[in-house]
């Protein structure tokens, strides 16, 4: 089996893969951050439909983002069931922009940019 090509180390490249934010760097959490970057706050159900996740899966990923301080979950009273809104926080937006910058560096470092 062919081994994957070696990633450039931080010594010979401007890109340091260890600096990628693991909290954001997961497909579903990336989707959440991407959507909230342009539409915050978003309803939990709206976010679930957009990223194509189940309630439980999205809730688990939101917990990780909330623990990192990147999102804020707000329950608003409503007629019927309370509505849950997900807000992108200021640190969350900063982390998202930082993630984009890191990925841009990665792409440039691998010569694809």
């Amino acid at each position, binding site marked *: 089996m062919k081994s994957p090509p070696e990633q450039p180390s931080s010594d010979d490249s401007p890109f340091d893969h260890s600096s990628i934010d693991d909290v954001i760097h997961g497909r579903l959490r990336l989707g959440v951050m*991407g959507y909230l*970057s342009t539409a915050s706050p*978003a309803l939990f159900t709206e976010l679930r439909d*957009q990223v194509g996740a189940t309630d439980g899966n999205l809730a688990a990923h939101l917990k990780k983002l909330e623990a990192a301080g990147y999102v804020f979950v707000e329950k608003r009273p409503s007629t019927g069931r309370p*509505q849950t809104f997900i807000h992108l926080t200021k640190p969350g937006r900063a982390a998202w922009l930082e993630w984009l910058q890191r990925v841009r560096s990665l792409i440039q470092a691998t010569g694809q940019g």
Partner: protein
Amino acid sequence: MNDLEQDIQFAARLARSGADAPLLGGRMLAWWGMMVAIAYGCHYLLITGRLAPPGLSLGPAIGFLWLAFVVIASLGYGLLIRRYPFQQGGSGSAANRADRAIWGSAGLALGWIMVGALVRSLLDGRADLVFPWTVPMVFAIYGTAQLAVGWISSNAVLQGAGLLGGAIAMVCWLLTGQSLQFAVASAGAALTLLVPGLLLWRQESEPRP
């Protein structure tokens, strides 16, 4: 395509979906457009003598008309605010947040103008002195708000409504002192608020990209 590229495309598609979310203020625009068009239309009918409430002279009749407008329009708006379609999704988009902020500020400006005009009319005992001067101001505010939201959301209908609002404001300055001013204002409210509001409202239910 590697995983990273797929993930970035996924996040980019979602970011675009949020940015392109439909404007959700259509029902508010339509409501105010309908109420303002009716109020200006009634004002026109009163000052031309086509409408004559029994037992009321012209001044008090106009005063009652605008007082009723403020009360009914505000009550209806309060009900609509409660029914703001948050469940529709996209209510947190930049365009929808800007829409609420711009129309919230414009509504305050319109309220200050109308309350001032009402108080002055009560002090004067007649409404025909002050109200004609409020009409161009009102349309200048409508036009500015529509244009601002239209630019932010790249919505051509609102941009057109904004420019039309500005044009009606200028025409209304020219017509100040003539009864025709209120007929133009009634049609103008329907064209700059009611029609764009109905179009936006219809777009809310269209599927999102």
